[in-house]
């Protein structure tokens, strides 16, 4: 099959280019990461991040035939019709909207800064009991679908609002994280958290485009979380 990969080495390339590789997959429905590894066996200069190779560490977010996803859990058969059969090329590019360091590795500083801005940690000033803080299964269920985020950046880098205003709009991943703590019955910083989001950009730049939902490899729904925060902000206002 034909694989077309975005290449850029800051030491030798003046601008990025696409390199085509012919890869023999033996007709197997490999993961995209396996295909990249086959290429790297021959061309050690090909650069990408990877770690767990099972979709939980969030290292290998990339743009695969136009859609953001994790290379390690995206089988060729799910990329696009014809890719597995070799009728259409596999096209791999770095996540859009972030500066490229080299090939498929992007500089994620901006993404991590957004995460840190929402104070992504439990705030509870009450002295802790000798055992755990109690939480009902119902309250615990409220953070299902929120705490599972792996910080792969597939969502934020697929979001047009993030592309336009990465400095001011927090992006879906950070907002999902913010709601993870707003929804946690053990957290006491609701007022403070909402206060930090109550401006025209941080949260309200979300236009409900829902690219984040369609690309999230963990099946999470940042748009819904953003909706919940909006409601909390509105309730606070009245």
């Amino acid at each position, binding site marked *: 099959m034909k694989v077309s990969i975005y290449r850029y080495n800051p030491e030798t390339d003046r601008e990025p280019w696409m390199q085509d590789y012919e890869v023999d997959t033996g007709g197997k429905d490999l993961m995209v990461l396996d295909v990249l590894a086959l290429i790297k066996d021959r061309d050690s200069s090909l650069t990408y*991040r990877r*770690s*767990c190779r099972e979709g939980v560490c969030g290292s290998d977010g990339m743009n695969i035939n136009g859609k953001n996803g994790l290379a390690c859990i995206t089988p060729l058969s799910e990329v696009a019709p014809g890719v597995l059969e070799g009728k259409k090329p596999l096209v791999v590019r770095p996540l859009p909207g972030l500066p490229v*360091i080299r090939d498929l590795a992007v*500089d994620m500083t901006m993404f991590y800064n957004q995460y840190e801005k929402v104070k992504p*940690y439990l705030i509870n000033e009450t002295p802790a009991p000798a055992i755990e803080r109690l939480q009902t299964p119902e309250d615990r269920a409220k953070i299902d679908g929120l705490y599972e985020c792996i910080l792969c950046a597939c969502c934020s880098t697929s979001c047009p609002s993030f592309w336009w205003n990465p400095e001011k709009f927090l992006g879906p991943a950070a907002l999902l994280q913010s709601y993870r703590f707003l929804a946690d019955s053990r*957290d006491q910083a609701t007022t403070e958290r909402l206060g930090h989001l109550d401006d025209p950009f941080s949260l309200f730049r979300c236009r409900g485009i829902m690219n984040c939902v369609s690309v999230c490899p963990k099946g999470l729904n940042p748009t819904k979380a953003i909706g919940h925060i909006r409601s909390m902000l509105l309730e606070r206002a009245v």
Partner: protein
Amino acid sequence: MSIRTVTFDAVIVGGGGAGMRASLQLAQSGFKTALISKVFPTRSHTVSAQGGITCAIASSDPNDDWRWHMYDTVKGSDYIGDQDAVEYMCSVGPEAVFELEHMGLPFSRTEEGRIYQRPFGGQSKNYGEGGQAARTCAAADRTGHALLHTLYQQNVKHNTQFYSEWLAVELVKNAQGQVCGVIALCIETGEVVFFKSKATVFATGGAGRIYASTTNALINTGDGMGMALRAGVPAQDIEMWQFHPTGIYGAGTLVTEGCRGEGGYLINKDGERFMERYAPNAKDLAGRDVVARSMMMEILDGRGCGPNGDHVLLKLDHLGEEVLHSRLPGICELSKTFAHVDPVKAPVPVVPTCHYMMGGIPANIHGQALRLSAGHDGDDQIIDGLFAVGEVACVSVHGANRLGGNSLLDLVVFGRAAGLHIEDALRQGMTQAEPSTDDIDQAMARMRRWNESDKGDSVTDLRKELQQTMQNHFGVFRKGDLMAEGVKKLADLRERIAGAHLTDKSNAFNTARIEALELDNLLEVAEATAIAAEGRTESRGAHSRYDFPDRDDENWLCHSIYDPLTKQLGKRAVNFAPKTVDTFQPKVRTY
């Protein structure tokens, strides 16, 4: 050659659970601390831990007792776990777990609002007399992810100084053998820097990638153990590798023991629940070494599944969709992705897969690295400036076989303990060991070697050959002659790796260079494993030999100590003197 030097009170190498628990302790204390991690911390392998963290917090059973947990752990270790260390881990455990909850870890809950605990292998009540216990605290089947992210969040809160995507390359030690810090490489720019520090803490994890088939992340290349061995630090019980019973056949990805804890069981090609024959009481929840061996026996006796009869099946469908989706959602996802099987409808094909390194850098309960003083059966000697916590350390709480759920406990208990100890030592005026220019230069030799290489075998080919050698010669069942052959192959590989070629010499995000440096570490750990495995002439825990099928307490109720300088195997006494409970005497180990 002079390089930039940065100075810290403590440098922690590794951003998994153990490293981030240690860094959190030190960040809170205000000492100047750096955490070096070759990946962004939440990409560390702790994130893959599924089933939970075992600890007697008395939620599922109000009468639970940490001493029962200690008994299980000592028995699970096949009696070469150090009883003072196991005592410390099991007794301090509840405090360390409650702290995690207070930090925000989203544990699953019981109706009473307490932390949910599930049964895991090798767990009992009342010192093996009271039946199966449920002692593993869980956040669904994503406990490692929840734990790692919580620790990262707390480190963000307390302003830990992270050096993310920096690879520690070599220890710097001086003529007195004191550790002065590490040389590390910035992956993004290629800059090499000397991190000078009073305390250097290795929290670098395991090295499962020495095997061709492993549940471990691609980053688990034994970097800390490799650096230690090159610096002359010994490896303890390094022959002890855990093969997890349920790696997904073909892919190697893990499905948690929690599947069996929730009621799943293994079947052979006849649909028989074969563990009833091997472990009549605990059945599928016997120790991992016992279950893995039983599976291999089924396969070798021709009762394996599939066209090649080379795996067995994990049956889960009888648990029902609701239990599977609420308790094991991650497993459902992984099975569909990697085995093309929906556990709600069909059993999952599984095979024992390399999972965990019980051995490592010998360390005490404060994380201080140890070597034996000169002479046979020498006393423990503390290595100034060096600490080891988590999987790279051998404290030893796991002995010859780790119990499920004990690795996450090990991480937080000993990461915390090392942090507390270093904090105290710094307050009392711990001094900086000074290296000479030559000492630093020596630590750069390996980087130079790769940078100057202009011919030789490819890193990828050598890595694959090494992994296949370990897979074929040092697997679940071992045999003297086969291992001797493996040792020879590794000696040959050592020569070829010393002359191997790094083709890409660029600086920016050069992952080819990282893989080359990792290969050196894989080789160190593989060779130590091979020589120690050949040397331990008995079967104990995970180390199972056809030619020495029995446990030999007369000669081998002890740790093995591999000395990298002489490549000889020595012995070190196991601790049988816990402080607050009676010694657990070695017994025949049955489940």
